[in-house]
């Protein structure tokens, strides 16, 4: 069911002013690629607030130590930015696996997070790059580590009317690998994705962050596997041990896209592939 009322505020200030007059059951509309599907499967609010025109949500800022990505930037816009290619290799690598070119022109990174799905590719990449999420409600901003934003399937820390303003990602010298297993090589929601970002210095792992999509109620951080790798060399032995640890951390379910047992086994395979790519980089 699609709503009968659509509102299109011209700025954040107008958004906050307009909200109290709107029906209580209201939803933000960004690229619409998740909301439309929700609307065709059931009720998706009495009113949509179109935030796609808000310039404040499309900002991109670079400081000496971090990047800020506005929630309203589309996946295709992000994938083309030189700063993303340089500092956010995981996000750049995830982009081609993300839906189709025309969908990437519509889908926003903010919508990817707000939707609260554990299979979100943009979220999985940003989690491995140590992103924080910045939320805004009227004048009040708060910042959470991105993994802490997800509370359960389709459940996030967003309060009523709260907006995702964007994502703050620290600059750190890392290499990344993104391994996605979907119904075909490109275009399709993942059965399992594993993303690894790592800083290697003098042949040993200085830091690594491993995130996985579609294998837990929320985007999964494989912390045991990452801790195990600290200070070690990436050789066949450590890779296979870390991949086994990642598998042990996953708790997938069986659904229309895949089966729990297969998904769990594939976490090990994809984690090993990703780590091998990083070792070779």
């Amino acid at each position: 069911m699609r709503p009968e009322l659509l509102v299109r505020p011209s700025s954040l200030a107008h958004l906050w002013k307009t909200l109290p007059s709107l029906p209580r059951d209201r939803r933000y509309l960004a690229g619409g690629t998740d909301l439309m599907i929700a609307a065709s499967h059931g009720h998706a609010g009495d009113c949509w607030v179109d935030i796609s025109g808000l310039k404040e949500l499309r900002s991109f800022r670079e400081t000496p130590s971090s990047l800020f990505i506005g929630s309203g930037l589309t996946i295709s816009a992000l994938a083309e930015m030189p700063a993303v290619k340089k500092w956010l290799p995981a996000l750049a690598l995830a982009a081609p696996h993300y839906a189709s070119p025309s969908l990437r022109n519509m889908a926003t990174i903010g919508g990817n997070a707000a939707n609260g799905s554990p299979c979100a590719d943009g979220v999985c990449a940003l989690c491995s790059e140590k992103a924080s999420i910045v939320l805004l409600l009227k004048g009040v901003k708060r910042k959470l580590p991105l993994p802490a934003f997800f509370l359960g399937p389709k459940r996030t820390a967003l309060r009523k009317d709260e907006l995702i303003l964007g994502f703050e990602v620290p600059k750190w010298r890392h290499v990344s690998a993104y391994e996605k297993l979907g119904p075909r090589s490109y275009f399709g929601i993942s059965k399992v994705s594993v993303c690894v970002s790592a800083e290697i210095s003098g042949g040993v792992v200085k830091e690594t962050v491993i995130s996985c999509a579609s294998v837990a109620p929320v985007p999964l951080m494989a912390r045991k596997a990452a801790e195990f790798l600290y200070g070690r060399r990436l050789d066949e032995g450590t890779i296979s041990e870390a991949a086994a640890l990642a598998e042990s951390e996953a708790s997938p379910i069986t659904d229309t896209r895949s089966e729990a047992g297969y998904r769990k086994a594939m976490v090990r395979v994809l984690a090993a592939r990703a780590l091998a790519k990083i070792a070779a980089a």
Partner: protein
Amino acid sequence: MKKNKTESLTAEKGLFTIALTLNGRPAEFRVKPNEFLLDALRAHGWKGTKKGCDTGDCGSCAVMFNGKPELACMIPAVTAHGSVVGTIEGVGTVDRPHPIQEAFVEAGGVQCGFCIPGMVISAKHLLENVPDPSEAEIKKALDGNLCRCTGYVKQIEAVKIASKKLRTRRASK
């Protein structure tokens, strides 16, 4: 439609009036609040854009939306107010086909034809940005356009032929 700081589009007698630029000309559509751009286009006689799935999966409804290919089945019609839209009717006609359309015919890349408008929109955007694409680039650009008839080989071939045709056309200008 009233236009103030916060544009609140409210329906009059159940319909919104939206104004857009369609294939280079101004157009005005009366649309239902819950209507999609794809349905609005087709209801107003622009039937070149096809509905394959209505869920963003097949690409047959691709149109140029403010300069980029987007999926008309996922764009609420009201949000198209003020936008610039290009459909297959704006690319070429039966009497005056676009070189890309000629190439699809020459390569034998058209069977039932349902996926072709979307394919041509994607191919045109690719060739405008990458005039001489590699096979991998062609595959990537057509990634979201599903075809249940051809097996894709001849369509990839068609884009290669189109790239040559457009190069010749540019050279002769």
